[in-house]
C-alpha cells in the first residue's frame, strides 16, 4: 500500500535520511523505532511532502506521490498525526475535528464525529474546550481523532505515547489496535516506546542515523538481543 524506496531527505546541508526503504502492506501496523534524531519524524513528514525527498520514490497505491502538494495527499487517504500533536490551541475540540474533516465529504461529518467520540468519550466531554487547554493525553486523543476525521486508509502516527502517563499510553495503544482491526486502517507508527510499539505491530523497522538498520516481525525484533539492550532498557512494565 505504501512503499518507500531509496528516499533521501536533506534539511539544508543536513543529510537526514540516507536512503530509506520501507513497506507498509494493506491492513498492517508497522512500527518504526529508533533513537532521538534518527530521522523517524523526518520520514513521516517526507511521506507527506514537507520536506520533499531529494532522491527516491514514495509509492502510495502504486502511484508515485513525490511532488504532490501536501494538502492533496489527505484526499488520497493518507492522514498524519504528527510529532508534538500540533493541536490548534485557540480552537475548540470540535473545530479541530472540523479541520480534520476538511478533505472529507461534509455529508459524513456528523456520523464521523459520533464515531470518534465513541472511540474517545473524553473528547465528547471536552467538545467546546480550547485545544490549548487540554491535557497531554487529551491532546493526543484529539490528534488521532482529527486524523481519523478524513477517513484515512493509511494513518501515520508520530510518537503517540510521548509524555503520557502509563495508563493513558495503554488506552491510546488499545485504540490504535481497534482502529486497525475494526476499521481496517493501515498504521505506520513511529515510537520511542519500542516495547509497546513492537508488541502491537505486525512488523517493525529500526532506523539508525537515517538508515534502516534492521527489520522483522514485531515478535522477532522484541526478542532480538541488540534491540533489547539498545531500545528496551527499562522498557518493561512501561
Amino acid at each position: 500500500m505504501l512503499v518507500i524506496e531509496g528516499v533521501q531527505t536533506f534539511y539544508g546541508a543536513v543529510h537526514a535520511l540516507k536512503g530509506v526503504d520501507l513497506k507498509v502492506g494493506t491492513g498492517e501496523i508497522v512500527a518504526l523505532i529508533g533513537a532521538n534524531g534518527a530521522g523517524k519524524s523526518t520520514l513521516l513528514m517526507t511521506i507527506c511532502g514537507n520536506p520533499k525527498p531529494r532522491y527516491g520514490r514514495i509509492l502510495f497505491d502504486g502511484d508515485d506521490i513525490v511532488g504532490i502538494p501536501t494538502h492533496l495527499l489527505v484526499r488520497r487517504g493518507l492522514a498524519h498525526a504528527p510529532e508534538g500533536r500540533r493541536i490548534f490551541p485557540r480552537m475548540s475540540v470540535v473545530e479541530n475535528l472540523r479541520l480534520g474533516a476538511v478533505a472529507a465529504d461534509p455529508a459524513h461529518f456528523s456520523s464521523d464525529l459520533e464515531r470518534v467520540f465513541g472511540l474517545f468519550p473524553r473528547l465528547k466531554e471536552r467538545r467546546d474546550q480550547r485545544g490549548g487547554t487540554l491535557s497531554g493525553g487529551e491532546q493526543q486523543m484529539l490528534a488521532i481523532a482529527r486524523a481519523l476525521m478524513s477517513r484515512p486508509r493509511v494513518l501515520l502516527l508520530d510518537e503517540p505515547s510521548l509524555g503520557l502517563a502509563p495508563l493513558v499510553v495503554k488506552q491510546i495503544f488499545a485504540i490504535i489496535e481497534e482502529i486497525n482491526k475494526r476499521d481496517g486502517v493501515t498504521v505506520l507508527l513511529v515510537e520511542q516506546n519500542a516495547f509497546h510499539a513492537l508488541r502491537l505491530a505486525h512488523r517493525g523497522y529500526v532506523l539508525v542515523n537515517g538508515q534502516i538498520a534492521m527489520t522483522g516481525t514485531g515478535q522477532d525484533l522484541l526478542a532480538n538481543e541488540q534491540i533489547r539492550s539498545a531500545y528496551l532498557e527499562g522498557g518493561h512494565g512501561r
Partner: protein
Amino acid sequence: MEYFLQQLINGVTLGAIYGLIAIGYTMVYGIIGMINFAHGEIYMIGAFIAVICFALLGMLGITWIPLVLIIVLLVSMCLTALYGWTVERIAYRPLRGSFRLAPLISAAQGAKIKPLQPMVRGGFEVMRGETFTVNASYLQVIIVLMTVALMAGFTWLIAATPLGRAQRACEQDRVMASLLGVHTDRTISLTFVLGAILAAVAGVMVTLYYGVVDFYIGFLAGLKAFTAAVLGGIGSLPGAMLGGLLIGLIEAFWSAYFSIEYKDVAVFAILVIVLIFRPTGLLGSPDVEKV
C-alpha cells in the same frame, strides 16, 4: 456639550474608516506574520478607482445615487481584490519563510485631483444648542452603518465559515493545516483579497467624505490604520476595530480641543504609551499554550 457630541460623530466616522483598513493589516499579520505595507496603497487605489468610476458613470448619465454608490463599491472592490491578490502572489509569496521584514512598496508620485462634487448631501440635526447645532450627515451615517455591517459580516466569516476556520488554522499552524488538507496558499491569497476589499470600501468612503483624493493619502491613512491595528493588538480582529475607533476619536477630539497641527503626533504618542504599558496592544494577549 454640543461641540463634544459633534466631534464624537466625526471621530466615529473617521474611526470606522481606520478600522476597515486596520482589519487588512491585522489579518495579514495574523496569517503570515508580515506587515503588508502596501495595504495603505490599496486603500489609495480604492479611492482612485472610485473617482474614476464616479466620473465615468457621470459621463454615461447614470445619476441615481444609490445605484452609482453600489456600482462604484463593486467595481473598486473587485479591482482592489485583484490588486491584493497580485501583491500577495508577486511580492509576498516569494518572501514567505525567509526573513520577517516586509518590503515597503511605495506608490508612484502624481498630482492632486480636483475636488469632486459632494455626492450624498444633507443630513439631520442631532441636537440644537444655544450656540451650536450638532449635525450628522447622511454620509456619516452611511459610513458608520456600512462599517458596522462589514465588521459583523467579517466576524461571522472568520468565526463560522470553512474559509474563516482555514484562515485561523493557517494562522495557528500552517504546516498542520496543510497536512489536514487545507490549501494554505489559496487561503493566504484570499486573506489578502479580503483585506483589500475592506480597504477599497474605506477608499470609496473617504472619496465621498472629503471629496479630495491624492496619491499620498495611502501613506498616512495606512500608517494610522497600522497604528490602530497595533494599538488594538495586532492579529486581533476586534482589536483592529477598537483601535480604529480609538484613533478616529483621538484625532477628532485632539483637533477640536487642542491644536490640529499636532493631531498626528497625538495619535502616535498614544500608540507609544500603550505599547510601553501593554506591548501586546489592548486586546492582544500573549498566548499561554500547554503542551
